[in-house]
């Protein structure tokens, strides 16, 4: 979806997506089962779960992290992302 935007800003310019802490993740896949936007994907080799489609992630949504038993999912700070969005919008 190359023309995808959020609040008028190209989605790919907004670094909002989950980061998996592999030292905590137990690969229960609850986050993947939960997320309807296919942000996560399974892998045969290496870590069994990866953030494959970060730009599918809904900006400001952190719902997957709330399904995570071992608290292995983190997101950037909202104020930083908001400041970036405002800056890019002003640039036009």
């Amino acid at each position, binding site marked *: 979806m190359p023309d995808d935007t*959020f*609040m008028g800003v190209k989605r790919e310019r907004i670094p909002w997506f989950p980061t998996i802490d592999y030292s905590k993740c137990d690969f*229960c896949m*609850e986050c993947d089962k*939960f997320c*309807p936007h296919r942000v996560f994907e399974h892998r045969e080799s290496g870590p069994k779960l990866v953030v494959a489609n970060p730009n599918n992630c*809904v*900006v*400001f*949504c*952190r*719902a997957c*992290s*709330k*399904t*995570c*038993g*071992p*608290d292995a999912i983190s997101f950037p700070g*909202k*104020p930083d992302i*908001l400041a970036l*969005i*405002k800056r890019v919008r002003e640039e036009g």
Partner: protein
Amino acid sequence: MNAKHAILPCNGLDKNVGQLARELALKLAAEAEGEIICPVLLNTAPSRYERVTAEMPLLVIDGCPTRCATKLANRLGLRIDEKVLVTDEAKEAGVTVEEGLTLGPIGLALVARLAADVMAETGPSVTQESSADFETPVEFITVTHDKYIFKIPAEGFHFNENDCWARVIGDRARVGVSDYVQQSMTDITFFEPPKLGAQISQFDDVGSIESAKAVMDAISPVSGKVVAVNDELVDRPEMINEDPYGKGWIAELELGDFESDKELLLTAEGYSPIVKKKAAEAQH
């Protein structure tokens, strides 16, 4: 907790927070005369607890965000009246409970405080009277996708791209979720209000809702202080399905800087293509 509750803990035997959930259930059963529901037996033989769940309000205690107890209750169609999530409570209290399966002093102190909190709760928090006249809107524009029709109030509402609305009257705004949210989540079974008095930045979480399908944080379109929450939703979360723009409001905020917030919000006309796009994507 002003009535005897049925208490459903996750009972997680292999995690420290699961052990704390179990300990909290035992403590409440002993001190508040609650009746414990064993999640394993409930799963195997739900009829064993039919009487208890029919007669008593249900308190669900989850250890970690996997929320096994909540999911079990949802799967069996049980109505949840109160919930505790131990990891959230620990985070909020700023404590790190001991690793391992033997309860330590930090964990036990947390359980004691949570038990006292639960027992001290005597129903909904006090809601300040709303000063403004927020009526259910009557004029809508609609977005149609296949058999679905999504309503968007034609005027007076501001939307963000997270499907939440704000309706501003004077220096107050009510916030809630859109018709698109309630239709895509299907039956909303649980509402957690934001804290009264909390200072909210624009796009901060302002409460959350749950259905069998999903959990969603409401993302506030406006900044400000929470001056009222819709306590009726705690008992009747389905009001969000019935009237998302009226009786299903979530919270009322005393506005911080609406002129600035507004620059990032959409009118009904601006929001409708977003609903159309999301509805189309959701099908695939």
